């Protein structure tokens, strides 16, 4: 059946709410299609406003409530329609959810799912644009997933909710129109999910997560026209980070270009490069990330700010020359 990335997320929610009576969703804008696009349409009408809860403007309390409900045996999903606002909830995410299992000796696990949406572009500016996945990938105890495909949009969300650990599920509004056919749901064990090769190649490894994977796939097409065979690795799970698939790819191609929709300094692209380098793989490496500046609002600056297929093709060509 035909889905797009947004409706695939909605299908995951429907599966979760139908399958698990202990699942419920809370967050801002859940009764309004404007906040969450086509990713939660009519869930409140199908499953009731007691299980799909639109909340006060309280990012911290709602996220903390998700953590507490998870400790009480529920499968809560907390939705942040824009990641920037979620920063008010850092204590619940970093101090509480991520550390709980460890600090109580593995006797309790807050299996909350925190859905953080990257919602940028369109001249929205510095506080309506951020992609902070690298921050959360830095925190032990928090699983961080970033679906790049329609199938992963559905299946990694289900896996996140089924996981006993706290999970940060990060989806990107720029991907919502991506279309694909989906097979019936099969639950995945998030603990064994990791980077995956989406396109095989010989000359160069393009490694990315989330929307950057789409750029990498488009760039691989263009590079192919120029006679360059690029492999594309979709990171999928940023924490705990399992770099083996990346390392094997680069061992084969001898060239790594890491592409990241987050900032350059201390970002995921740097982690990818370090993981390859410290395993003794000899390769030429480069990265494309956001410049170390807040997102601009002016359209001219915005165009210069975000990585594009053109910049990937040009950088890849230089790396190989």
């Amino acid at each position: 059946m035909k889905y797009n990335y947004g409706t695939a997320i909605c299908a995951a929610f429907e599966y979760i709410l139908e399958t698990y009576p202990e699942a419920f969703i809370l967050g801002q804008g859940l009764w309004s299609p404007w906040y969450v696009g086509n990713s939660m349409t009519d869930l409140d009408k199908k499953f009731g406003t007691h299980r799909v809860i639109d909340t006060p403007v309280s990012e911290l309390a709602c996220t903390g409530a998700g953590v507490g409900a998870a400790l009480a045996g529920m499968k809560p999903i907390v939705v942040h329609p824009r990641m920037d606002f979620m920063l008010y909830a850092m204590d619940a995410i970093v101090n509480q959810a991520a550390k709980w299992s460890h600090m109580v000796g593995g006797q309790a696990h807050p299996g909350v799912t925190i859905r953080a949406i990257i919602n940028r572009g369109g001249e929205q500016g510095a506080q309506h644009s951020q992609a902070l996945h690298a921050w959360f990938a830095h925190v032990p105890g928090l699983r961080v997933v970033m679906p790049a495909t329609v199938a992963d949009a559905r299946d990694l969300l289900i896996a996140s909710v089924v996981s006993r650990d706290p999970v940060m599920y990060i989806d990107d509004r720029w991907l919502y129109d991506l279309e694909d056919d989906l097979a019936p749901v099969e639950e995945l064990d998030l603990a064994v999910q990791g980077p995956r090769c989406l396109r095989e190649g010989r000359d160069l490894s393009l490694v990315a997560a989330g929307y950057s994977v789409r750029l990498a796939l488009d760039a691989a097409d263009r590079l192919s026209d120029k006679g360059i065979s690029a492999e594309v690795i979709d990171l999928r799970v940023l924490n705990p980070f399992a770099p083996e698939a990346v390392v094997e790819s680069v061992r084969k191609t001898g060239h790594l270009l890491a592409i990241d929709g987050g900032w350059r300094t201390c970002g995921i692209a740097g982690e990818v490069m370090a993981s390859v380098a410290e395993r003794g793989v000899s390769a030429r490496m480069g990265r494309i990330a956001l410049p170390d500046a807040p997102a601009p609002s002016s359209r001219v600056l915005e165009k210069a700010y975000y990585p594009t297929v053109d910049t990937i093709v040009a950088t890849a060509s230089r790396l190989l020359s």
Partner: protein
Amino acid sequence: MGGLADPSRFHQPIDIAGQDPAVLQGQLRAILAIRMAEQHLADMRRNGLIGGPVHLGVGQEAVAVGVSANLRASDRVFGAHRSHSHVLALGASLHGLFAEVLGKDTGLSRGMGGSMHLWDGPRGFYGSVPIVSGTVPLAVGAGLAAKLSGTDDVAVSYLGDGAVEEGAVHESMNLARVLQAPVLFVVENNFFASHMHIRLRQPLEYTARFASAHDMPCEVVDGNDVVAVNKAASRLVDHIRSGRGPAFLEAITFRWYGHVDWREDIDVGVNRSTEDLSNWRARDPLSRLTVAMEAAGCWSAGQHADLVEAIRKDVVDAWEKAMNDPYPQPAALLDRVYAR
């Protein structure tokens, strides 16, 4: 507020009229056990046997004992940095607490938390953490979970007068009220956040005003009167269990030691005089209960001496066992980050 903030008042025995002597004896035992356990921790911290900080609540024991009288194991209790009394009042073992404070594998949190991260799930103690309002939203979620599951279990959030200065508390109270989550917010107002007196931090010295701001029922009680705490908590827990939403209890109390560890003479706070401390020691939740019970003929000096001796033995036995227990295996460092 009836002058509860004036430490020269409320030194007389508490009012125990109509109380079941057996219940009073149980509460006396609980208060005394918490007192002696914490004084032991103070001694062991002073002599260097405890490596990490201990935030002691000596003087505040009646709050947790009075509240816990209204709870059951399926309720969900959350605490903060000064939570020894909260977990012990629910029936946690002295040995489990001591072993945890010592970082031993047999501790309440398997030696992974220490004094500031306590857990006793089977008794309904969901956890305590040192970020002062860190667990307040978690309690709202645990209460909401009870409601969504169709039970009449309640969540209890212990917090201090300092925590109410954090936004998390107000977000949580508002959310609990809007969702009608079954949560009892218990503010132990001991007038000090670390070193700062409440008069230097807030315009008023009571926190109950926040209950009316969030439209929930509230009681303010002498936190050093276990019967008063029990009665107020009983009324509020009844309200919550009957599905009428959250409630707020402010218990006025005082800690005898400084913010952390055993000292009375440093880290005790700005504006904290020795006269205030001696007045608050006279508002002792333990002696005011004991004297009242003796006057009513349901307690005697002999019984008291026997009880002190029995608890002393429990404390010593639990401590020695904990001292001899093993530390966590090195693998625990990585094995407990994620569920296995």
